[in-house]
């Protein structure tokens, strides 16, 4: 079986996040990294292979800037066999709708029995991409999967809802998104990092992928930002740097001052 894992390039956790005031789009000029939530998807694919399921190929699929090739090296070092980067200036400014359509168009050609997404992207904080991709691909869907097993052509997944855990079975080919608690991703070894350089990386344009340009990018976006403003002002919190537990006295003082102890 083949597994495709969707991975996004996002601004790294330490870089300041801001919207470009002229385009209202995320400023992507700083350092970037692999979306940490997607690393759990890759790890799960590798675990399925290690568990003895016949996983012929794990392909990491990304829509992003050409610069995404660098974070994608990490996907290869973690265990993806190949990456496909869909990159085209025409895709910049895509909304959820356009991105789901573009990803699904690329995924359709990957012949994957299982498509795995992360629970959310750390830059956009939506958690809906898997459901939109599944609809385009016309495949069954399970989101927020906290544990996963496969048997024959069926997957069994547990996911949390507002009422506890649902157990859902779905026939492959299927689309899932994984919770960030499904596994603890490994760190790539030096050998794996070196090995990653030899793995194939395909770079495709929107036209190569057969994407209708009117459905993507800023022009194709159905959700249009009209204005951006600061959030309602709130009082700054107090901050203490702790060394070896030396903050305990100050915390107690603060709690007493606020009348909660």
């Amino acid at each position: 079986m083949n597994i495709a894992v969707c991975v996004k390039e996002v601004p790294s956790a330490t870089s300041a996040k801001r919207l470009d005031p002229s385009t209202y789009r995320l400023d992507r000029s700083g350092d970037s990294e692999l979306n940490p939530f997607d690393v759990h998807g890759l790890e799960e694919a590798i675990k399925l292979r290690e568990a003895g399921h016949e996983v012929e190929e794990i392909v990491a699929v990304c829509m992003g800037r050409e610069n995404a090739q660098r974070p994608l090296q990490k996907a290869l070092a973690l265990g993806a066999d190949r990456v496909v980067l869909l990159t085209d200036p025409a895709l910049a400014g895509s909304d959820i709708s356009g991105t789901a359509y573009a990803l699904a168009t690329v995924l359709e050609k990957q012949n994957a029995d299982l498509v795995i997404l992360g629970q959310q992207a750390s830059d956009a904080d939506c958690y809906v991409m898997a459901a939109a991709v599944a609809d385009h691909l016309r495949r069954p869907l399970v989101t927020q999967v906290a544990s996963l097993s496969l048997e024959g052509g069926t997957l069994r997944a547990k996911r949390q809802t507002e009422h506890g855990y649902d157990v859902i079975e779905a026939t492959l080919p299927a689309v899932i998104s994984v919770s960030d608690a499904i596994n603890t991703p490994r760190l790539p070894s030096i050998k794996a990092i070196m090995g990653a350089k030899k793995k194939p990386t395909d770079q495709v344009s929107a036209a190569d992928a057969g994407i209708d340009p009117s459905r993507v990018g800023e022009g194709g976006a159905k959700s249009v930002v009209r204005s951006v403003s600061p959030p309602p002002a709130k009082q700054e919190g107090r901050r203490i740097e702790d060394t070896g537990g030396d903050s305990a006295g100050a915390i107690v003082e603060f709690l007493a001052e606020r009348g909660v102890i």
Partner: protein
Amino acid sequence: MATIVFMDHDEGAFNPNSLGVLAKAASLGGEVTAFVGGSGIDDAWAGGLGAYGASRVLVADDAALAGLPQPLVDALEPHAREADTVLFGAGVVSADVAAGLAARVGSGINCETTDFTLGEGGVVAVRPALGDTVMVESTFASSPAIILGRANAFASEPTGSGTAPVERVAVTVQEWSSAARMAGREQAETGGVDITEADVLVAFGRGIGGPENIPVVEQLAKALGGEVAATRAVVDAGWTSYSMQVGQTGKTVSPKLYVACGISGAIQHKVGMANAGVIVAINKDVNAPIFEFADLGVVGDVLTVMPKLTEALAGR
């Protein structure tokens, strides 16, 4: 202006987030249609949505519609195509249906919406973004506009009285929508401590390292006269039980004091505890979002700070 509100429900109770969005839509004036999909729906119960402002209720009743999102997209699609706006409150099933519908009808979707207006000039949705550091106002370039609200952003009090007329609608389920089946539910255990009642909560996340360190959290909670709570990550990982979970798919709490130990402060956690009186966060990552809304942020190793704090409290 045709507006439809998708009503998520479970075991005879509507999701309060769906009710809140319905009440908000109705408060903006105009006709609002509530859509209830499920199996064995009682007409009188569905009609009761009139009390939240629904002017009519569409009921799609089919065994395939029990709790799984894709058949619900199938059932909703023909009505959504006739609408200007389709609204969803926060919820796991609601989010899946909203996004599936957006893909199906080629619509734009606004997520984490905290406010919206409906009018002849079109729909405007507001969402906080980038860790709630900016408010983004969006419009839609196609119809229907799809909006998925943030958890607890819309209050769910009844706005009116009386019942709304109910209309039963036909359902056609797509073949791929039946390829997923509900195999069971592992119910949250009931009984034990009710964290929504506690005045003081000491909550832990993955940052405490492992379940073996839970006693350290318990000792701190005891010293503060409070109870222990948790994030989804540690519940999903099996360190503790679902009944302890605070957040979007867990409980909403508002204690006088909330001490967050090794918790990143993800938005889905924040929506469940942001109304606490005083929030103290202990986290070693200075960039953790929790520091953006904590009253006191302690940057340090939680496994060192917790026992020292317990000790200092005992010494008072």
